[in-house]
């Protein structure tokens, strides 16, 4: 039976390649892709000539995407740390749990209260007749779905511990070689 290690000892052993790869992938999905999406949407709305009517929707989407990106920066760092350590390493469990706990907070930072309010300026619609639709405000509430996601993240925490336990012996054996 290989010798047991402490968390401090485990934190010294990791794979830079895996960590950097995970960090870069997270950076692409959390920063690059949303920026490209915003650029694409802006261009599409401008080409449709629907700037004024769609401005409110675009602003809401813009704000949501910015919240996703800014509050997602710690997720990039945590993605590096969780992938830096291999299965069976105590540090991997620790950073996986921290990453999942932060992801729950991140979800609620992106969608405060589980709501997404969208406003649409429709004053240009039906113009010319005696009736006009001034504005439409739509509030989407998906708190229930978010709570289900939280439950799945909690399940993922239990899973990370199960993965750690089932790979611990193999990890220690490799460490002692």
């Amino acid at each position, binding site marked *: 039976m290989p010798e047991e290690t402490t968390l401090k000892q485990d934190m010294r052993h990791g794979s830079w390649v895996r960590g950097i790869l995970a960090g870069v992938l997270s950076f692409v999905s959390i920063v690059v892709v949303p920026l490209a999406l915003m650029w694409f949407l802006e261009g599409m709305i401008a080409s449709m000539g629907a700037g004024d009517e769609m401005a409110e929707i675009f602003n809401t989407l813009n704000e949501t995407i910015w919240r996703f990106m800014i509050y997602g920066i710690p997720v990039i760092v945590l993605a590096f740390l969780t992938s830096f350590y291999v299965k069976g390493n105590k540090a991997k469990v620790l950073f996986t749990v921290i990453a999942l706990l932060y992801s729950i907070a991140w979800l609620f930072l992106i969608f405060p209260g589980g709501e997404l309010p969208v406003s649409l300026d429709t004053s240009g619609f039906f113009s010319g007749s005696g009736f006009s639709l001034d504005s439409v405000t739509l*509030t989407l509430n998906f708190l229930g779905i978010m709570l289900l996601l939280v439950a*799945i993240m909690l399940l993922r925490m239990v899973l990370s511990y199960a993965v750690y336990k089932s790979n611990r012996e193999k990890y220690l054996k490799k460490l002692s070689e």
Partner: protein
Amino acid sequence: MKAFSVIMHAVYALAIAGLILFVALGFIPQDTGEMPLDVKLEAESTYEVSEPNGVLEYNFSDAVDTYGGPADAYTDTGVKIPGTTVNPGDDASVTAAVTAVKAYAVSNPEVTSVTLKDNGGNVLTQTMIMKEGDEITTNMYTEISITNRLRYDLIDIAIGVDQLNDTGTVSYRVAESAPSTIKTGETFSLPVDISINSLNSALIMLTGSGDTLSIYMGFDVSGKYLYGLAGASIYATAVFESTTAAPDVDISATRISVTSTEPIDQLPSDLDITATIGAITVTIVNDSTGFSLVMGDGTVNIVDELQAQYDEGDYTIEVGVPPDSEVITLTQEQYAQMLDLVKQVMETGGA
């Protein structure tokens, strides 16, 4: 431990796949060739026989004109009432049919309602059914029928309509439906009762900036989906533009006067109300000569008088000029709304 890890992986994968499938299926209709939701605004032409003749005549005429063909009145047990054939655009047939219905109801007291059906036995529909009101309150009824072709029930679907002023700061609910569940694959009709108090309606138009007589409405639709896990609420504001130019408005603590040389298109074209609330007299006229609203005679503080009557729990309004007057009792809510609106009119006018 290995077995536990395998089980946890399976549970985790199932949970994620289940959630994605559950949400995705919720937005794909059962039959992709049809619209996920079908919405109609109409009510079946069924009327209480106790309604006044004028109300029944309006409804009979509206239903038949909308349908574009003749129809007869049937009892709720399916008996065709003789002499009730109504033809589109034929006022004489409308009057005769209502008379026949009333006479039949007298000789058959068990008949409490009648329904208009065409020659094929199909029930006629109307967008808006007029109900009995009083001199200052117009009551209407309609149904919003929604066919749910999505995979899950639509829960707590509620619809409301508000009248707003032009700055959106005053909201007065004129129509409301009770929250209802629409099961998947079913069509459900949400009953919508509409009650418009002409006095409050006119006052709302004066509580905003006062530079328009357009009518502002707010449409409020809310509901839940995915077994209540997600929901949406929509609020749309609409304007029924009035071509009437800005009226002359003169507001003091003892008198409110609003006059325009043109009528307001969105109000009834034969509106002529004289009402007395305590010591305050109100007249509202909207006809071909123009629109006018006068409240108070310049001697009594309007807000103080209305407030005193409210505090006494007296919500009555005497409508008409004695001896042909009628006492109408508003609900506490309607009276409070009127009082609040008058206060806001005073604030707007700087009185």
